[in-house]
């Protein structure tokens, strides 16, 4: 691995790790944020409506 390759690897891995860490920190440290943050949630309302 060349020096520039090492730099690219560290910069890339470091950036995405820091970004992910920042997002997790922001979600956990902002009051009530976990109630407002969503991903692709499989429990969609139409499941309950059909029961």
């Amino acid at each position, binding site marked *: 691995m060349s020096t*520039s*390759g090492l730099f690219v690897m560290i910069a890339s891995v470091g950036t995405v790790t820091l970004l*992910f860490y920042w997002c997790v920190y922001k979600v*956990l440290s902002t009051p009530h944020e976990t109630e407002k943050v969503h991903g*692709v949630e*499989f429990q*969609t309302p139409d*499941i309950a409506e*059909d029961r």
Partner: protein
Amino acid sequence: MATLALMSQHKEAWGSRLGVIMAVAGSAVGLGNFLRFPGLAAQYGGGAFMLAYAISFLIIGLPIGWAEWAMGRYAGSKGYHSCPGAFAAILNKPWAKYIGIIGVIVPVVIYMYYVFIESWCIGYAVKFWTGQVHLTSTEQTVEMFKAMSGQMGDGSALTFSWNSALPWLAMVFIFNFWLIYRGLSGGIEKMCNYGMPLLIVLALVVLGRVMTLGAPDPAKPHDNVVNGLGYMWNPSKVQIERVRPAAGEKALVREVVGEASIAEAEKEVAASGGQWKLVTITAWQQLKNPLLWMAAAAQIFFSLSVGFGVIIVYASYLKKKDDVVLSGLTASSANEFCEVALGGLITVPAAVAFLGLASVAGQGTFGLGFTVLPLVFAKMPLGTFFGGAFFFMLFLAAITSSISMLQPGIAFLEEVMNVGRKVSVTLLGLLTTFGTGFVVYFTADLKALDTLDFWVGTFLIFILATIQIIVFGWHWGIERGLKEAHSGASIRIPPFFGFIMKWLCPAFLLVIFTLTVLTSLFGFDLNSMTFGSTSAYVMDLIGGTQEGKVVGTNQAAQLSVALVVIVAVFFSLLSARSKAYQRAEQGLNKNEA
């Protein structure tokens, strides 16, 4: 006692909060993180590809992702939870729903082959853990993969043998629909909540094992992890090329990585009598290749599920008070962490360490994951455990993605036919059973899978993503679009993204799309500025000539495109009759009289 109760509540609160993070992250991660990305990055030059990838993430991935979250939530506030409904609600035009149909076709058709790949993952995982994998050569791994995927010929995958995908596919397919119908309850919810942390833990274990491999074979010191990392991340490529390749012969002899290999290559070139030369291709030269940019953009789309029609549907269930900005950013960042920090450090370095550079070059997605890596694990101490863990990790990543691909179709059928979930799931199950059966039958060269992956998984996604960002930036306008996105948000989208979303992103996509059409479909060579052979994907459909030889059409490819057209026509006919969409075109809420 009160203190213990408080501590217990505090611990549970943290547990549930972390569970939210894991749920968001888990929904973002899929097969592409660990299979597609490493192969593309290695194929297109590591560091140069990473620059194009990072730019694509900032200009395409994040902006269109945020646009989808905002537009989806808006549509949901009007009562529309399908992509056609969202487009009709936003554009208020009769033709809008037909554009939105792309957002149903893409996830439904991709599901048809994605679930096939998913079955390979669980099949490999179980085979490893039950000690059925005894591989000593690349030929054996190729045979194992051919048997699993049915590449021996059309219909060969339809054998009920544990060595082929059919029994695994049946279980996975039923499991997917059981989950999507029943929703999550009890144990299943726990599985999904624990799945993401387990995935990361497994990936870190495998990563740790790979990083400590060194050079496994003392007789082949060049086959080591450091050279594998170099192959993956070095911005420049060094390769031996033929000075005057013969007709039909490639100029590239092989790529070399590492000082020792380069020194040996220099000796080989000197001894070749002028037939070979050692060439360094700089990052800048690689960045002038439009195919590299196309590959980076396509990977961003696929990996972040942008232009899939998935985010817009799930966002439609959110409320004004929900935070779509941080949701989108967290999901994207989790995806990128798994892709770059884990996928980028595991797959290619391990393959190079055990099998050498030649085994990795040009492997693409499936080759790397299912032919090279099983042999890597078979040759690794405790490889049975690590191999099973890796492929089970891939299965976990795949199943959360495949389930998410079903909801757009379900929501669409519920809206156009005004039926409940039971009926819509049944109908979609029938449709996808037929489609997956089609893919599983036409497995010679994985032609159906490959054709659908190109025309739907690349081409249509480009189109939908481009339309979405133009609707967001030009129909809504940036001011209104950002206002919609910021509702409920704890962070603001940086102002410069307004310029990106309105101008840079659409221009970038249109340029890449044009270059994709010219080079991939019509064989235009950007270096010589001439038209060469038509792309294989086009020749499969209409025939053509390649290097002076007439190439016939491929029936499986033609039928695959016909399948997509039939699905599109079927969905269009359903949309045309939908009273809900007619209300959307008039600017009315779905349940408004």
